[in-house]
């Protein structure tokens, strides 16, 4: 029996508790409790009036029974009676019972309120505190109505005892939170703020919670608290460890109060008053310094208390996000914690660094810890710490480290805990997309994702890879090849079959030239998976098959056979059956033209917020905000500033349906089927409804570069290049003279000649109006890398261009080494007072420096073989966008600058060319082969050269010409 309960024994209670503890089974316990409940009930109902002590004892027993998890439905009245007792212990048990067991809407509240009113006016501090505790604990509206006016008075009255003030502060906070309308601001508010200066630390600790809440709701009214909080903090931080006596905890002065002060400051921006700010920065520096000092005690409590303050200070530094010096110091400090032996510290440091990573000042500093964080991901024993490490990697990811981080996350996925796999998959998918420089890497990453964690790859993820492949023609061939290879695995995930079916259905033709992946091989591969798949996947495969019939007429018979089989055409699933019947019919009656129209390649998807990102946001809730904001900044890079998508679109893509034919982007409502005949439309609508708006509206933003600025911007800075400038550039790949640009005011003509690695270009600026252009000024600049690749010199032109007149400008160009971008030409002038600002790309392309080389067939093939390394070759397969007239083709190839070699290719339809690109640094030999397929209206273009960048660039340039 604990000695402390001597004199206030309640022996009956002690016996009862011992009995319960001795119960061997749950049944026995319940039996004992029921017996006791019956006993108490009879006592309460009995005729004999119970004395205070007995009432207290029975109420106490009820409380105990309640805490064991049993319902209590009587005894409330007896507890209320105890409130009016004059004995502290009886009153206290009464209040305790009411706080724990009476919820705010009880009918007893009025009785309770009366008792509280008496206690509040009793001027007995212990009674007052009990009453205040009770108000705070119950906090109902009736209580707020009864006491909201009274409590502020008690709180700021000069003669109120400290302990009562503390209780009053927190009681008021509760009422304010529950019924803010009843707590009226008044003369007391300014006096509350001054409680921060109270001599008594306990009062400050209690008051600061109230003030923090009030200031976050009414920042202006309480902003004087900033300077008071700073000075209080400064006094604590600079005090010796013994100054604050009982408020010092293991040699740390007032750790909890310090944390709260720092938290209060996070309700406000950095102080405007220089002196206050200086004092605060000094405090923060002191806190950071203290972390480096040797500890005053070896006890973990000491370091925990110290670090609690440190983390809160770092939160404040991050909140201000304006002191680069402090941010970097904070980052270094957290870096130290990453290696600390205390798991708690590592966890908090990872978490804190996550927010630090989104600050521009500290992003780089955070990145230096990448190896440690990756190590944490691999070795931490606690899943919640690993989760934090993954979050941090996600937050610190940028273009420079994306490949490493994505690779690490992928390898972690193989062993990751099931609970976090789905989120990891989303993150990998987002990073891969956001930072993809070459999209083949992106495709590889997503396919790996499906391979490693196929079950956790949600629809959004595989929809997204398809959207991207469809929108980017440079990756389509690669994607087709990769999925084809992935499908070779004996067991592959159903999601892989879905992606494979879709991509081969669209782009299988790009790899059909290789006999190892001929149309029939592709089809057989897909069909070998068919029977193991669920209905939605089979439906998708059927659509892929009908697309095959269009792409490869030679597969028609085989596929029709499959469609005709009983297992398709009589399938018990209505959807499959309908598809089989309709596709079969479509393929047998429609002419090739109709088929080609109906089954046309998917038009690009409109760019919009990635549905994956939307999903991650939904999953993470508001916690992910910092990452989202960053995403907002970064998005422009990837999608050419594609719009963020209306909320409706996000909502729609969130509401993903289980059907595989559900629209990729939640576009369904806005997507009229385009380009399909009505009869086919109804049947294809589910597979192809993803098509959405027509290609023209969708493609605009896809270029990564031409999003925003209107052609003329009233700014002194050079305008961004015109949207059409890439197109204009392409016009001049195979010719040297012509009109570069024209609008209502100005025409720019161009004439150029090239020899070896040198070129000269004449630009003719024609004023089409009858009014003079003033301040006419043109500049040519080489952005980025180009500076070191091209040497461009211009002479300035006269600043005045008369109406109808033409001025000429000469530009000398020297090619130092091979290059990709084009120089920018900016023209600025004033016309009728308005500033015109136009930027164009100057049509200087690498092929201009070609020197044609004639050679015999044997030579050609020998060199072709020498250049057989994969990176030396660039290949493109593309649709003809102009007629395939032989003479026009020849003229274009000659215009490219190479020699057109006759009688070299065994197939007379094909063209081969050779040339040497002359740069100052080196000469790059270049061989070219163009294979037209008139029937399919397709070309295959292959470039080989001794330099990979040259092959790629020439291939890209030339592919736009046909």
């Amino acid at each position, binding site marked *: 029996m604990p000695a402390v309960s001597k004199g206030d024994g309640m022996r009956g209670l002690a016996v009862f508790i011992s009995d319960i503890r001795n119960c061997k089974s749950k049944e026995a316990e319940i039996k004992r409790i029921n017996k006791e409940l019956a006993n108490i009930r009879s006592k309460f109902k009995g005729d004999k009036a119970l004395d205070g002590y007995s009432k207290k004892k029975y109420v106490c027993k009820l409380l105990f029974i309640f*805490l064991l998890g049993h319902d209590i439905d009587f005894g409330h009245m007896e507890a209320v009676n105890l409130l009016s007792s004059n004995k502290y212990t009886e009153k*206290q048990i009464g209040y305790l019972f009411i706080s724990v067991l009476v*919820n705010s809407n009880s009918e007893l509240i009025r009785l309770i309120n009366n008792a509280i009113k008496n206690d509040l006016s009793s001027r007995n501090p212990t009674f007052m505190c009990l009453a205040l505790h009770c108000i705070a604990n119950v906090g109902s509206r009736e209580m707020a109505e009864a006491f909201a006016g009274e409590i502020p008075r008690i709180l700021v009255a000069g003669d109120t005892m400290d302990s009562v003030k503390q209780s009053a502060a927190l*009681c008021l906070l509760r009422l304010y939170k529950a019924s803010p309308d009843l707590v009226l601001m008044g003369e007391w508010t300014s006096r509350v703020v001054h409680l921060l200066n109270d001599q008594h630390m306990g009062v400050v600790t209690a008051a600061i919670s109230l003030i923090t809440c009030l200031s976050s709701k009414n920042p202006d009214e309480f902003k004087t608290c900033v300077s008071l909080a700073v000075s209080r903090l400064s006094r604590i931080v600079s005090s010796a460890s013994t100054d604050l006596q009982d408020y010092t905890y293991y040699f740390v002065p007032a750790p909890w109060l310090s944390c709260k002060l720092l*938290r209060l400051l996070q309700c406000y921006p950095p102080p405007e008053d220089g002196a206050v700010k200086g004092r605060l920065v000094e405090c923060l520096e002191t806190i950071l310094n203290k972390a480096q000092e040797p500890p005053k005690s070896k006890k973990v409590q000491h370091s925990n208390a110290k670090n609690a303050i440190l*983390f809160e200070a770092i939160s404040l530094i991050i909140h201000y996000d304006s002191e680069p010096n402090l941010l970097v110091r904070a980052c270094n400090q957290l870096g130290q914690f990453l290696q600390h032996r205390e*798991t708690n510290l590592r966890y908090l440091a990872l978490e804190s660094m996550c927010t630090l990573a989104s600050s521009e000042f500290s992003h780089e500093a955070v990145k230096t810890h990448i190896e440690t964080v990756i190590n944490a991901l691999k070795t931490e024993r606690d899943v*919640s710490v690993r989760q934090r490490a993954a979050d941090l990697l996600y937050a610190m990811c940028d273009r420079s480290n994306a490949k490493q981080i994505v690779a690490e996350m992928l390898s972690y996925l193989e062993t990751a805990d099931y609970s976090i796999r789905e989120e990891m998959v989303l993150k990998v998918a987002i990073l891969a997309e956001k930072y993809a420089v070459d999209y083949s890497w992106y495709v590889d990453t997503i396919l790996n994702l499906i391979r490693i964690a196929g079950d956790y790859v949600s629809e959004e993820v595989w929809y997204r890879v398809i959207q991207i492949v469809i929108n980017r023609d440079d990756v389509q061939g690669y994607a087709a090849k990769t999925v084809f290879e992935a499908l070779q695995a004996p067991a592959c995930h159903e999601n892989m079959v879905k992606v494979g079916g879709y991509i081969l259905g669209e782009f299988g033709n790009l790899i059909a030239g290789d006999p190892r992946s001929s149309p029939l091989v592709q089809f057989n591969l897909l069909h070998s998976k068919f029977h193991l798949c669920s209905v939605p996947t089979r439906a998708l495969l059927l659509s892929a098959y009908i697309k095959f019939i269009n792409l490869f007429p030679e597969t028609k018979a085989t596929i029709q056979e499959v469609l005709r089989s009983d297992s398709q055409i009589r399938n018990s699933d209505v959807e499959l059956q309908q598809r089989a019947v309709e596709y079969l019919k479509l393929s047998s009656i429609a002419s090739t033209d109709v088929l080609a129209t109906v089954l046309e390649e998917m038009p690009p998807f409109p760019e919009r917020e990635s549905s994956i990102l939307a999903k991650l946001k939904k999953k993470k809730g508001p916690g992910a905000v910092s990452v989202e904001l960053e995403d907002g900044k970064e998005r422009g890079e990837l999608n050419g500033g594609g719009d963020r998508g209306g909320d409706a679109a996000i909502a729609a893509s969130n509401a993903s349906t289980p059907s595989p034919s559900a629209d990729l982007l939640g576009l369904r409502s806005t997507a009229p089927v385009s380009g399909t005949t009505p009869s086919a439309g109804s049947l294809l609508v589910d597979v192809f409804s993803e098509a959405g708006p027509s290609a023209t509206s969708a493609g605009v933003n896809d270029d990564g570069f031409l999003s925003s600025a209107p052609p003329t911007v009233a700014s002194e800075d050079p305008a961004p290049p015109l949207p059409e400038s890439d197109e204009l550039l392409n016009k001049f790949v195979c010719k040297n003279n012509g009109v570069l640009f024209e609008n209502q005011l100005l025409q720019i003509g161009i004439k150029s000649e090239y020899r070896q690695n040198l070129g000269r270009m004449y630009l003719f600026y024609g004023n089409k109006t009858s009014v003079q252009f003033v301040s006419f000024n043109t500049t040519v600049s080489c952005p980025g890398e180009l500076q070191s690749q091209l040497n461009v010199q211009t002479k300035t032109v006269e600043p005045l261009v008369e109406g109808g007149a033409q001025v000429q400008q000469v530009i000398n160009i020297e090619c130092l080494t091979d290059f990709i971008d084009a120089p920018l030409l900016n023209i600025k002038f004033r016309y009728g007072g308005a500033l015109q600002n136009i930027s164009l790309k100057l049509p200087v392309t690498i092929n201009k420096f070609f020197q044609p080389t004639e050679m015999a067939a044997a030579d050609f093939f020998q060199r072709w073989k020498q250049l057989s390394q994969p990176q030396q070759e660039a290949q493109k397969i593309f649709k003809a966008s102009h007629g395939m007239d032989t003479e026009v083709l020849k003229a274009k190839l000659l215009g490219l600058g190479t020699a057109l070699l006759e009688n070299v290719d065994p197939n007379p339809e094909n063209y081969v060319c050779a040339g040497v690109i002359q740069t100052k640094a080196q000469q790059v030999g270049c061989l070219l082969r163009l294979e037209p397929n008139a029937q399919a209206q397709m070309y295959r273009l292959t470039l080989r050269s001794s330099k990979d960048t040259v092959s790629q660039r020439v291939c890209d340039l030339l592919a736009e010409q046909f």
Partner: protein
Amino acid sequence: MIKFLLMVNKQGQTRLSKYYEQVDIEKRPSLETDVVKRCLSRKKEECSFVEYKDFRLVYRQYAALFIVVGISDTENELSIYELVHNFVEVLDKYFSRVKSKLFFLSSQSELDIMFNLDKVHIIIDEIIQNGHIVETNKNRILAPLLALDKMAEAH
């Protein structure tokens, strides 16, 4: 703010619970079981902060007793972690006055709490009110209880 404080034994039985945010009485047992399960299943080297629904748990183990605190994200985890210890030291100071050994290292502690629920509640109410820290000074936390004991003895 602090949402709740639980004291649980190793068998997962709640010995004391204190809620600062309204949770329906019927829902408390299931919430407690869930919360306790999460903390009991964790190993020593795992960190003491657990994400749970939309808030966090901070827990600390003393011999056979677990103390679990549920907090919102505006609260500083380490400071709560030490607040728990401060609370335990107060209990120690109070209950070990008449005993030679430290209260919380004895298996007696659970019993002491059960026999003195009212006192433990008084102590908690002196430290936390309404979900916020109100006092951290051990002497001041204990003052009302000691005054009470004196009254009882004089009785």
